[in-house]
């Protein structure tokens, strides 16, 4: 069974789903709250690498690399509840399959914007802010 990837209704504008974040906090437990922060830091790092691969794949029109990078980013995004990022990655996987490079460029731009939003929200959480 797979955890459902849909934004919760509590925060339509939040980049990260509060339910997914709570799930991660519960998994980290009260013994080691640093682990929760570590997951978010790891995600920022992993997502950055995936984005680099994704940009390279689109620039060189490498469909296989695009699919792999989009898939990897989608999986990591699902873990932290970055739901819109998951949706854009899914679309990028599809355009990768179809080798539709015009749509790929448009989706990459959407992804860059959403990634910045997610990144900023994580920074706020790591600084002890909301969510």
């Amino acid at each position, binding site marked *: *069974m*797979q*955890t459902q990837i849909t934004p919760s209704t509590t925060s339509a504008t939040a980049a990260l789903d509060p339910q*997914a974040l709570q799930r*991660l906090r519960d*998994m*980290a*437990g009260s013994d*080691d709250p640093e*682990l929760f922060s*570590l*997951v978010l830091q*790891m*995600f920022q*790092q*992993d997502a950055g690498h995936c984005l680099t691969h994704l940009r390279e794949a689109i620039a060189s029109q490498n469909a296989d690399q695009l699919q*792999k990078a989009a*898939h*990897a980013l*989608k*999986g*990591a995004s*699902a*873990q*932290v509840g970055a739901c819109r990022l998951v949706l854009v990655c899914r679309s990028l996987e599809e355009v990768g399959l179809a080798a539709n490079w015009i749509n790929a460029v448009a989706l990459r731009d959407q992804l860059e914007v959403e990634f910045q939003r997610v990144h900023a929200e994580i920074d706020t959480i790591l600084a002890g802010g909301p969510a």
Partner: protein
Amino acid sequence: MKLLIADDMGTHRTILSMSLKKLGHEFVAAEDGQQAWEMFQKQFFPIVVTDWQMPRLDGIGLCRRIRQEPHEQYTYILVLTTLDGRMNYLEAIDAGADDFLVKPYEEDLLAARLLVGQRIGSLMTKVKHFEGMLPMCPTCRKIRAEDDHWMRVEQYFAKYTKANIVHGSCPECSKALQVSDRGLLKRLRAPLLAASSRP
């Protein structure tokens, strides 16, 4: 029981580490399939939890390598991946995985899979133990082999092992034979006689 986990993404590795710590499992982590394979060759792991898509060696390749080499004990392999779907599941099982779980996973389902892994490991140890038992006739000392066929110890070893049986007296029997010590010979044969007189 120490587990081996393999995932190239820190996000997944950290989340899996959190779950395993909470479930009370000890583990070591590899950053790709190749590193996991190198660790596996140095140390036996009863449970391996591996991602599918990884650089150098992927999870499917790791499954195949573990299954290709004969091991004394069984390793339960769980493929933990973001690749879902029937075809991927079937491919993983065909490569040697025992089970398949899609990320993000429910923690209780991971715990259930690991419990099954422990059960399988324990059963396989028992099977190995029974395989190691040799039914021997207490009277004539023949051994029961395949198809209920009984054969002499020498024949059994010649057929089923690489050992070559050559006859030679042990020091105690040699000494008894040299001095014609019938009493000592009788004592040395006593366990055999006792076994053959049992009902």
